[in-house]
């Protein structure tokens, strides 16, 4: 991204850049299981998240900046998730939606389930629930937008140990 992530930007410019980024998040919907149904319900007319600027029609990972993993991740599917995450350009954010992707959920003792998506990719927001209500996803997106608004890209990419603590949305 050139200069933007190497230099600590002055506050007015940082504000404008972050304002642009947080209100136009293109989401790559990695819908795996039941939580994908609640994700689709959140994008529909009743609990619309398109009004928050989150557009669910990214054509692929290369045109997206938010990845919402909703549903159980199995060991067979995990390489595909890693590959698609790597294909997304920076800066990118991950919301882990539902308890299966947070920590394995009701399948915590299964031999074929990855116990939590954070074993493979770094997560920014955890939304707990089985499945979480659409309002919980809206809350998670708003928290993420707040975090992006106050973010400094230099801190995120250059400073060592800079990845901030992930947000856990309380139910």
């Amino acid at each position: 991204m050139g200069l933007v992530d190497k230099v600590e930007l002055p506050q007015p410019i940082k504000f404008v850049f972050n304002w642009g980024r947080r209100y136009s998040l293109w989401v790559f919907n990695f819908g795996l299981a039941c939580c994908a149904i609640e994700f689709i319900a959140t994008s529909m007319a009743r609990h619309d998240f398109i009004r928050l600027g989150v557009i669910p029609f990214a054509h692929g990972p290369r045109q997206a900046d938010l990845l919402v993993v909703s549903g159980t991740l199995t060991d067979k599917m995990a390489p595909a998730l890693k590959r698609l995450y790597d294909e997304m350009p920076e800066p990118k954010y991950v919301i882990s939606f539902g308890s299966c992707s947070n920590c394995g959920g009701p399948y915590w003792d299964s031999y074929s389930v990855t116990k939590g998506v954070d074993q493979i990719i770094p997560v920014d927001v955890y939304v707990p629930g089985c499945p979480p209500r659409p309002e919980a996803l809206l809350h998670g997106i708003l928290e993420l937008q707040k975090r992006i608004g106050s973010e400094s890209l230099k801190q995120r990419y250059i400073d060592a140990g800079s990845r901030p603590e992930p947000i856990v949305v309380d139910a």
Partner: protein
Amino acid sequence: MSISIDQQLGGTTFQSADGTGVGIIVHDKADQELRTADMTLNVGPQHPATHGVLRVIVTLDGERIESAEPVIGYMHRSFEKLAEYRDYRQIIALVNRHDWVSSVCNELGVALLVEKQMGLEVPERATWIRMLMAEWTRILNHLMFVGSYPLELGAITPMFYAFREREEIQALMEWITGGRLHLTYCRVGGLKQDLPRGALDMSRSLVPRLRERIDEYETLVLGNEIFHARAKGVGVLPPGVACSYGASGPILQASGVAEDSRKTEPYCFYDQVEFDVPVGTNGDSYDRFAILLARMRESLKLIEQIHERIPAGPISVKLPKVVKAPEGTAYVRTENPLGQLSYYLVSHGEKTPWRLKMRTASFNNVSVLPYLLQGSMLSDMIAIMGSVFFIVGDIDR
């Protein structure tokens, strides 16, 4: 020209029959005809058009599909092994999550199975309410596919309409059980809790609204000429093949076989109510979709009849502190919205099952895909795959 053509091109010449000219047959250096190669295309597992994580490896000859092999297992969460470590209440909570758009219908099978093995007599009120919830869940499930199948064919509007209906029915489900998607309402011996005040009135007021909306879907989708062109005659499944594969539900009924567990082997009180089993004639994608709408109408008819029949009474049987199924085997078959869902239990008398086999509708339905896709065009692939109405959690369990 001083050099003759055949010497330049290295081919053989022949005189055309009417004497008008000379033809040349050309061979390349290796004296072979020009050949094309088949292409192998990988669809999925992450793909916007497949419902969830289903991967299909398609071998193409131009636009025509020579063979299609579905690769499943990306959602295999090992339910059958986990069931051996969980007691029956935990199994009911877990089993909701397999066919994740029809929650109560999954649980109903497990509850009936354990009650059969234990010889429990479920109170009437509980059985009628179970049927009511099962029919509303059936409509929820079919609405999902009524919304997503036209989306795959290019029509975006039915999706929004279908989800509007789903939200209204889910509000009713939430009023009764507290959950939107995974209800965990059935218990061994009855139900979790009684119907709250106003639930039956809410349910009664929803029925006429749903009815007029289904009419709307019929005119919007079934009458559309683009839908006709894309779905009629596409993916024809003969009835003998469908039975041999073990296909069930709308797919089997569209092929002409009227096999519905609610009619042929009634469970709960399905023999005391009147409804029809709609059957298709051609077995193509259009019929499969039309059957969904017809089944929704039958479910509404059933719901109206159930409203009149719910008696007062207890909601569940008093159970011992620890629920143990006696030794032996049991089998129960129910009609899930997607098809036939059966459970087979082997119990050694403990509070966890020894073996619980879940035979889901989508597993057998998706195994028909190689037969349906062979010989069709690539552009019909999505129309055929979408018309098989599967849920990936149901395939892989």
